[in-house]
């Protein structure tokens, strides 16, 4: 209790309260600190429980926390912190480094002065001011160790997913194991990498696995007991709505894919959960699954309390190129053709940018955000129309983009100050070989990458037009984007340089050769009146801040 009060008091930048309080007699200290605690409680929901995270705090996260994968429910990855800004960015200094021994793709959570982040099989809690380890949890597992995007938090509990498709709950105080529940059968090929999303008393967890022909689904799990609350299947049961987009009397629909492997977004006022789904199976071969294949490669709006489907939009119908539509469905309120609208935007794997009304699912915009050669046009529903020659074939089909996509899981951003949507995009050419003969199982073939380069782009959400373009070099970047109220956009190029750009123009304002690739998305938080900017580069976390003023000597 007392330590929380001291933290609340010393959070005020105007004076070093801890120094003043420490000098008083014990009783006076207790009275003052109790008063400060009550005052702090009134100012912010943050201090409700000792170090944990109250679900209500997620509705309006304190500006200096990062309590969920995308920072908040909207997925905008726009921070209102502006201590670090365009005026002082050239003074940015390294505050501390934390090293691990494995690549980090997760976006850390910051809650009450602690950073929580992950890699496959590993979770760390470190002090967010000084970068010192508090505890570490390790659980070795079988399955695909391609990456882990991060954690979810609820009160004193943490949640993360594993390569063997389990959901693990840990005690956030010390990293001890609380329980493990199975999300999907790893022996069938399922695994999981996503950062669970906490909505009131639901842990929303998704799964991966398209190397074998599996059925995708999304689950809501009780954060206390681990029991399943609901499961929404990406492919419907035969006879259910949407099943008419699959062949009848075939096992295709129950092995149709549609993995749910990236965290979605949520609108508390509408109480709608937005989630993107992955590609259908068999991946490159569509003969056994004629039809649009709902709800694979779709953006769906679900009721988070029941899992009921409220509306859907399909960026890539009858997909044949592994173009998951799992990219963040970013939510923002803005004017569209003169009217204020509640919007949802996705820069999708297939190279197209979509804007929808997120209350109704009404389609508003479709436009390519980068070079592509596979679509001949856009249909009446706003979906791109695939050219026949883009179909994977035994003799090889040259397609731009390749299966790795015109963008991928790395975080996009929407900046309300500029009104621009930002995406890390690729020009990527691949030859798609269909190698399956007879009934396809699994991928049924593969594409071979020929060449790629990457670029950061700003899009006008009303038209999809490219407002500015900032090339970041040869290769396929997976660097995420962060924008801030300090008029800064943070990301990285393909040469190992961290970048700060002007979000209005794309001009470089700051860079640093960090000596490694940004495999994750930057995040930021503020403690004791000091803003920290965090990048996970390869196996290390780098925390930047403005230089501290020298302390007065004692």
């Amino acid at each position, binding site marked *: 209790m007392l330590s929380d009060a001291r933290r609340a008091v010393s959070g005020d930048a105007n004076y070093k309260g801890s120094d003043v309080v420490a000098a008083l007699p014990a009783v006076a200290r207790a009275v003052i600190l109790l008063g400060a605690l009550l005052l702090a409680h009134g100012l912010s929901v943050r201090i409700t429980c000792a170090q944990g995270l109250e679900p209500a705090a997620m509705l309006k996260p304190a500006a200096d926390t990062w309590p969920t994968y995308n920072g908040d429910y909207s997925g905008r990855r726009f921070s209102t912190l502006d201590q670090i800004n365009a005026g002082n960015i050239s003074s940015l200094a390294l505050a501390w480094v934390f090293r691990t021994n494995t690549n980090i793709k997760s976006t850390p959570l910051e809650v009450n002065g602690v950073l929580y982040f992950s890699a496959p099989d590993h979770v760390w809690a470190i002090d967010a001011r000084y970068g010192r380890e508090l505890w570490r949890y390790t659980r070795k597992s079988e399955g695909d160790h391609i990456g882990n995007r991060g954690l979810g938090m609820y009160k004193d509990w943490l949640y993360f997913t594993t390569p063997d498709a389990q959901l693990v709950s840990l005690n956030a105080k010390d990293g001890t194991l609380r329980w493990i529940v199975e999300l999907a059968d790893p022996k069938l090929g399922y695994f999981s990498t996503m950062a669970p999303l906490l909505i009131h008393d639901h842990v929303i967890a998704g799964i991966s696995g398209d190397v074998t022909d599996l059925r995708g689904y999304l689950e809501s799990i009780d954060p206390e007991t681990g029991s399943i609350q609901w499961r929404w299947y990406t492919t419907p049961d035969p006879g259910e709505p949407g099943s008419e987009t699959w062949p009848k009397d075939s096992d295709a629909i129950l092995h149709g894919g549609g993995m749910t492997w990236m965290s979605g977004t949520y609108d508390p006022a509408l109480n709608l959960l937005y989630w993107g789904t992955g590609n259908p199976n068999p991946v490159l071969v569509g003969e056994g699954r004629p039809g649009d294949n709902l709800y694979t490669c779709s953006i769906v709006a679900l009721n988070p309390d029941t899992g009921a489907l409220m509306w859907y939009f399909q960026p890539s119908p009858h997909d044949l190129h592994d173009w998951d539509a799992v990219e963040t469905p970013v939510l923002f309120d803005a004017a569209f053709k003169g009217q204020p609208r509640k919007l949802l935007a996705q820069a999708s794997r297939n190279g197209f940018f979509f804007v929808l009304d997120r209350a109704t699912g009404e389609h508003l915009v479709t436009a390519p955000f980068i070079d592509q050669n596979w679509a001949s046009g856009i249909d009446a529903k706003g979906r791109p129309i695939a050219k026949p020659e883009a179909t994977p074939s035994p003799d090889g089909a040259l397609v731009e983009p390749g299966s790795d996509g015109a963008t991928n899981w790395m975080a996009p951003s929407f900046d309300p100050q500029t009104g621009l949507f930002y995406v890390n995009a690729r020009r990527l050419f691949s030859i798609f070989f269909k190698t399956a003969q007879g009934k396809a199982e699994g*991928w049924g073939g593969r594409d071979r990458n020929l060449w790629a380069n990457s670029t950061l782009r700003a899009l006008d959400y009303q038209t999809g037009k490219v407002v500015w373009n900032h090339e970041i070099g040869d290769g396929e970047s997976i660097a995420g984007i962060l924008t801030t109220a300090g008029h800064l956009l943070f990301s990285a190029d393909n040469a190992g340089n961290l970048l700060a750009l002007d979000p209005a123009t794309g001009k470089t304002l700051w860079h640093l050769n960090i000596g490694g690739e940004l495999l994750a998305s930057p995040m930021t938080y503020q403690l004791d009146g000091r803003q920290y900017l965090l990048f996970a580069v390869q196996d290390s976390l780098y925390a930047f801040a403005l230089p501290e003023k020298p302390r007065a000597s004692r």
Partner: protein
Amino acid sequence: MFRRPQRALKISFAAVITFAAATATTESRPRQQTASAESAAVERGRKQFVESCGFCHGADATGGRGPDLVRSPLVAHDVKGDKIGEVIRNGRADKGMPPQSLTNQQISDLAAYLHFRLTESIESAGVPPAYPVQRLLTGKAEAGKDYFNGAGHCKDCHSPSDDLAHVAQKYSSTELESRMLYPDAPRVNCTVTLASGQQVKGTVKHIDDFVLVMKDGSGWYRTFSRDQVKVELHDTLAAHRALLNQITSTEFHDLFAYIASLK
């Protein structure tokens, strides 16, 4: 799904389990014997499968009247025939599958075949190293030759009697087709103009928005800050990138038919 760059062949979960299961019974034998013993079992299993199971489950186990066994959870959980054997011996009366009394060896072979089919489906997520070139030869070599000498502008840099002589012998089928469109490891040459006006020519080692590292004519490396010099790049593969943006499907396969004839 997001996948790693394709150069590294991914060893996936079931391949690990399958391999582990297969080698567990034969750990005392040397590796070579193990591999050929396994493939012999798979071959026997394939024949046995056609005979005993194919009429319902399809000759390649992908289903027919009976389910697709490549997608079977039971097969995925099976270890050396423990679960598969039970189903074969007891049948599935409610599903119309008759019991069959097969020997332990026959069941073991069938299990080996089914696990092999599962591994095959997992490994289908890769271009096989030995891909029959016949499948790629859907174009007309004569038209490809015309494209090479005409609209493709290939002859501006290449010649079938010089750099491309016998090129079809140097690469596997899919490698040849891929490299035809875009070869590996481009060499980028550069001309750097210093503030003094002096020019330095060489090959690029590293370039980004801020720094150029190049090797000059003397063989030494030199570094420049981009804001202090002018850099002109001469990318020898620029024409190939332009090709990617222009070539049609027909031209692509015609050109390949021609290139594949340069043996």
